[in-house]
C-alpha cells in the first residue's frame, strides 16, 4: 500500500469535513446533518480498514510509518525553534484506528435512531463528527503537541455533549465538573510535554523513543527528582484526568447526564481510552522513570473502589459508568505491572463491549422511558435483541471464558500475579489482590444489573405495558448485534480462552500478542537513528529490507539477534503464573456468578442482609467514598473559599486600611507642597513654555496630517529614506 496524503488524511479529514459541512448545513437543511456525519465516519472506516489490512499483511513489529511536514520554523542560526507535525502509524495505531472508526460508525448509526426527534438532535451530530475527527487525529499524531491539541478539542466536545441538555441544571454542572476536573490533569500533561521538550528538543514520539534509547534522560533532575520520573508522572497525570483514575475519577459518573450514545462513544469507548493510549505510548518514559509501582497502585485502587461503588447503584447508566472506571483501572494496573500488550488488548476489547453495553442501555432507556433498575424487570420479552447483545457483553466484561474480557483481563491479572510471584515483594501483592477482588465484584454487579433489568418479574406495570416490543431495526439493534459478535475472545487471541487451545489461523492466531510489542529498551534501538520522512508524493521506503518477524511459540516475536532460549525460559514462568491466574479467576468468577444467582434469581440470600451487616460500608459507597464531598464541600467550599475570604479580609482590612490609606495621607501632604511648586514654577514657566513650543512645532507637523494622500506618500518616502540612512549609512 502506498502511504500518501490521499490515503491517510481522509481518515482524519472526512469526519472533519463532515463537521465543517454540518456547521453550514445545520441552519439551512438540518435533516441532512446526521447522514453527512454517518457518511464521513463510514468513509473514514474504510480508509482505516485499508491501513489495518496492510499492517496485518506485512505482519511485522518493526513496520511503522512516520511522515512529517513543517508547521512552524522560526529557526535563526543556531537557535532552533522548529515544530513538525506529522503522522506516526505503527501496529498499535492501526488497531486503534480500526477500533475507533468501527465503534464510532456503529454509534453514529445507532444515534440516528436514538436521537431522532430529540431537541437539537442535529447539533449532536455536529459535535460527534468533531469529536471523532479529533480522536482520529490524536491517534494518528506523531507528537505530543498535536496530541495535546486534539486532546483539548476532545475535552471541549465532551463538555458540549455532557451539557447537551443544558436546560437541566445538573447537566450544566456535570459538564463544568468534567471540564474542570480534566483540566487539572491537562495542566500536568502540558508541564510534562515541556519537560520532554527541554530534554529531547522535540516532542515527536520516535525522537522521544530515540532519546530514551540513547539515554538522554539519564542523570537529569528537576527539583531533586529524576527528570524522567517527573515528565512521566506529569504525563500520567493527564491519563489520570482523562481516563478517570483514582483521585480525579469524580467527573465520569456525572458525565452520564449526556445522551447515551455520547456516553458510549466518549465516556466509555474512545476518549477515556485516549488517556490509556497516551500512557501506552509513553510507556518507555514511565519505565525509565520507575513509576510502575505508583501506576499499579492507582490502577488497583481505581479498579477495586469503582467496582464496590457499582454494587449498590440503582441507575442503569451509573452501574456502567462505575464499571467503566473499574475497567480503566484494570488497564492502568496492566501498564503498572508491565502487561503492556494485555493492557492495550483490554483497551480494545473493553471499547467494543462497553460501547455495546452503553448502546444497549440506551436502547432500554429509550424504549422503557426510565433508567432506574428498581422500576424494571422482565424486559427480556419486550427487548429480545437488546437482551441478547447485552448478555454477550456482560459475559465478556465478567471474564467468562470464551469471551474477550476473559482473555484480556486475565492476562493483566496473570502478569500482576507473575510479577508478585517472581519478585516476592509485598509491595506488588496489594494491587494484585485488589485486582482479583475487583474481578470477583465485576461479575456480581453486572449480573445483578442484568437480572434486575431483564429477568424476574416486572415491577412497574404501566411502563412495562407502554414499552413497545422490539423489532429488528437496522439502526437500533443491528449495531448492537454487530458489536456483540466481536465480544468473542478468539478475534483477539486466536483461541477461545487465550491459553492456546484452538489454532485456526496457523501462525497468526496470536496476532495481537505478536504485533503489539512493548517498547522496552531493546525494542527502542530501532528508533535510535530515526529519520522522519516528509509528506512526499511517493512512499520511497524500501520495504524489502524490513524482515518478516519470526514467530516463536511462546513469546510471539523474536527479533534478529535475540536470545531465544532465555526468552523461552522466561515465558515458561510467565505461562505458569498465567495458568494459575486463569484458574483462580475462573473460580472467582464462578463464585461471583453463583452469588448473583443466589441473591437475585433464587432469592436464597436477600440483598438487605448485606445492607444490614455492612451498613457503614454501604453508607460510604452511597456517598461514593466521600470523594465529591471531599472535593466540593471540603476542598473548595471550606478550603478554597475560606482562603479566599481570608485573602479578601487581608486585602480590605489591613492592606487597604493601613497601607493604602496611610500612603494616601502622606501623599496629600506632599501634594500640598508640590501644588504650590506646580502652580508657581511649573505652570507658568515650563507648561506654558512647552505649549508655545508645541504650537510652533505643530505648525510644521500638522501640514503632514493634511488628509491629502499624496502628502502622505511623500512623508512615507521621506521616512523610508530617513530610516535607510539611519540603518545603512
Amino acid at each position: 500500500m502506498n502511504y500518501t496524503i490521499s490515503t491517510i488524511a481522509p481518515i482524519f479529514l472526512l469526519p472533519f469535513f463532515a463537521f465543517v459541512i454540518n456547521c453550514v448545513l445545520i441552519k439551512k437543511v438540518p435533516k441532512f446533518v446526521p447522514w453527512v456525519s454517518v457518511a464521513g465516519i463510514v468513509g473514514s472506516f474504510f480508509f482505516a480498514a485499508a491501513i489495518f489490512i496492510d499492517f496485518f499483511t506485512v505482519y511485522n513489529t518493526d513496520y511503522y510509518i512516520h511522515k512529517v511536514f513543517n508547521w512552524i520554523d522560526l529557526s535563526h542560526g543556531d537557535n532552533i525553534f522548529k515544530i513538525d507535525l506529522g503522522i506516526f502509524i505503527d501496529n498499535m495505531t492501526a488497531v486503534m484506528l480500526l477500533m475507533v472508526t468501527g465503534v464510532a460508525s456503529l454509534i453514529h448509526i445507532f444515534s440516528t435512531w436514538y436521537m431522532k426527534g430529540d431537541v437539537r438532535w442535529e447539533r449532536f451530530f455536529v459535535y460527534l463528527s468533531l469529536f471523532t475527527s479529533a480522536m482520529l487525529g490524536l491517534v494518528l499524531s506523531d507528537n505530543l503537541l498535536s496530541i495535546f491539541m486534539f486532546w483539548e478539542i476532545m475535552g471541549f466536545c465532551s463538555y458540549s455533549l455532557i451539557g447537551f441538555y443544558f436546560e437541566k441544571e445538573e447537566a450544566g454542572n456535570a459538564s463544568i465538573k468534567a471540564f474542570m476536573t480534566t483540566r487539572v490533569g491537562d495542566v500536568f500533561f502540558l508541564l510534562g510535554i515541556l519537560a520532554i521538550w527541554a530534554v529531547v528538543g522535540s516532542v515527536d514520539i520516535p525522537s522521544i523513543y530515540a532519546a530514551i534509547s540513547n539515554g538522554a534522560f539519564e542523570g537529569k533532575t528537576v527539583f531533586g527528582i529524576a527528570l524522567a520520573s517527573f515528565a512521566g508522572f506529569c504525563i500520567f497525570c493527564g491519563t489520570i484526568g482523562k481516563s478517570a483514575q483514582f483521585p480525579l475519577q469524580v467527573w465520569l459518573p456525572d458525565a452520564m447526564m449526556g445522551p447515551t450514545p455520547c456516553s458510549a462513544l466518549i465516556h466509555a469507548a474512545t476518549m477515556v481510552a485516549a488517556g490509556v493510549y497516551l500512557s501506552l505510548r509513553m510507556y518507555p518514559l514511565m519505565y525509565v522513570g520507575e513509576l510502575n509501582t505508583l501506576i499499579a497502585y492507582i490502577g488497583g485502587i481505581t479498579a477495586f473502589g469503582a467496582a464496590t461503588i457499582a454494587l449498590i447503584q440503582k441507575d442503569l447508566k451509573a452501574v456502567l459508568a462505575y464499571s467503566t472506571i473499574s475497567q480503566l483501572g484494570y488497564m492502568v494496573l496492566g501498564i503498572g505491572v508491565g502487561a503492556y500488550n494485555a493492557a492495550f488488548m483490554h483497551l480494545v476489547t473493553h471499547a467494543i463491549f462497553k460501547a455495546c453495553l452503553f448502546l444497549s442501555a440506551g436502547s432500554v432507556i429509550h424504549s422503557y422511558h426510565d433508567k432506574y433498575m428498581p422500576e424494571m424487570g422482565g424486559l427480556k420479552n419486550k427487548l429480545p435483541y437488546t437482551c441478547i447483545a447485552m448478555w454477550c457483553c456482560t459475559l465478556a466484561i465478567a471474564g467468562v471464558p470464551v469471551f474477550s474480557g476473559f482473555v484480556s483481563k486475565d492476562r493483566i491479572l496473570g502478569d500482576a500475579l507473575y510479577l508478585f510471584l517472581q519478585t516476592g515483594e509485598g509491595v506488588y501483592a496489594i494491587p494484585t489482590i485488589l485486582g482479583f477482588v475487583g474481578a470477583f465484584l465485576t461479575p456480581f454487579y453486572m449480573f445483578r444489573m442484568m437480572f434486575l433489568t431483564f429477568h424476574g418479574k416486572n415491577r412497574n406495570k404501566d411502563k412495562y405495558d407502554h414499552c413497545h416490543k422490539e423489532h429488528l431495526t437496522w439502526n437500533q439493534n443491528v449495531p448492537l448485534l454487530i458489536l456483540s459478535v466481536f465480544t468473542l475472545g478468539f478475534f483477539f487471541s486466536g483461541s477461545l480462552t487465550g491459553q492456546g487451545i484452538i489454532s485456526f489461523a496457523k501462525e497468526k492466531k496470536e496476532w495481537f500478542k505478536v504485533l503489539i510489542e512493548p517498547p522496552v529498551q531493546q525494542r527502542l534501538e530501532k528508533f535510535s537513528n530515526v529519520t522522519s520522512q516528509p509528506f512526499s508524493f511517493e512512499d520511497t521506503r524500501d520495504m524489502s529490507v524490513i524482515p518478516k518477524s519470526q514467530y516463536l511459540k511462546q513469546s510471539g516475536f523474536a527479533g534478529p539477534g535475540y536470545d531465544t532460549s532465555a526468552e523461552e525460559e522466561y515465558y515458561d514462568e510467565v505461562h505458569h503464573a498465567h495458568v494459575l491466574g486463569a484458574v483462580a479467576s475462573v473460580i472467582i468468577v464462578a463464585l461471583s456468578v453463583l452469588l448473583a444467582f443466589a441473591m437475585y434469581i433464587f432469592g436464597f440470600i436477600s440483598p438487605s442482609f448485606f445492607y444490614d451487616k455492612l451498613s457503614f460500608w454501604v453508607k460510604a459507597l452511597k456517598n461514593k467514598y466521600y470523594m465529591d464531598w471531599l472535593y466540593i464541600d471540603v476542598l473548595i467550599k471550606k478550603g478554597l473559599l475560606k482562603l479566599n475570604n481570608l485573602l479578601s479580609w487581608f486585602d480590605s482590612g489591613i492592606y487597604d486600611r493601613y497601607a493604602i490609606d496611610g500612603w494616601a495621607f502622606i501623599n496629600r501632604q506632599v501634594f500640598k507642597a508640590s501644588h504650590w511648586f506646580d502652580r508657581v514654577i511649573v505652570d507658568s514657566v515650563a507648561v506654558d513654555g512647552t505649549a508655545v513650543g508645541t504650537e510652533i512645532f505643530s505648525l510644521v507637523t500638522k501640514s503632514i496630517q493634511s488628509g491629502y494622500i499624496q502628502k502622505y506618500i511623500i512623508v512615507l518616502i521621506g521616512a523610508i529614506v530617513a530610516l535607510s540612512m539611519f540603518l545603512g549609512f
Partner: protein
Amino acid sequence: MVSLQAYLIVSLILLITGLVIMISRKNIVAILLGIELILNSAALNFVAYSKYTTNNLDGHIFSLFIIVIAAAEAAVGLAIVIRFFQIKETIHIDEVSELREEIAR
C-alpha cells in the same frame, strides 16, 4: 551580455516613474496607473533575481502572485473610484480628504 544590473536599472526607472506619477497626478485613475508601474517593477525584480541569484522558480511564483494581487487591487480600487465619482461627481484626489478636520483651504 545583459546583466542583472541592467534589469535593476529598468526596474528602478519603472519604480521612480510610478512614484512620480503617484505624487504629481491629481486624478485617482492616473494614480492607480502609477501603482501598476510600481507593482510591475517589483515583479520584474523578482524574476530577474530568480534567474541570476537562485536556481529555483520561486521568484516566478512570486511575480505571478503579484500580478494576481495587482488585478484584484485594480478591480477593487477602480470600483472605489467609480463609487466615489457617483457620490462626489469628481475623481480629484484632494477631494478624498474626509478624515481630515476641516481646515480652510
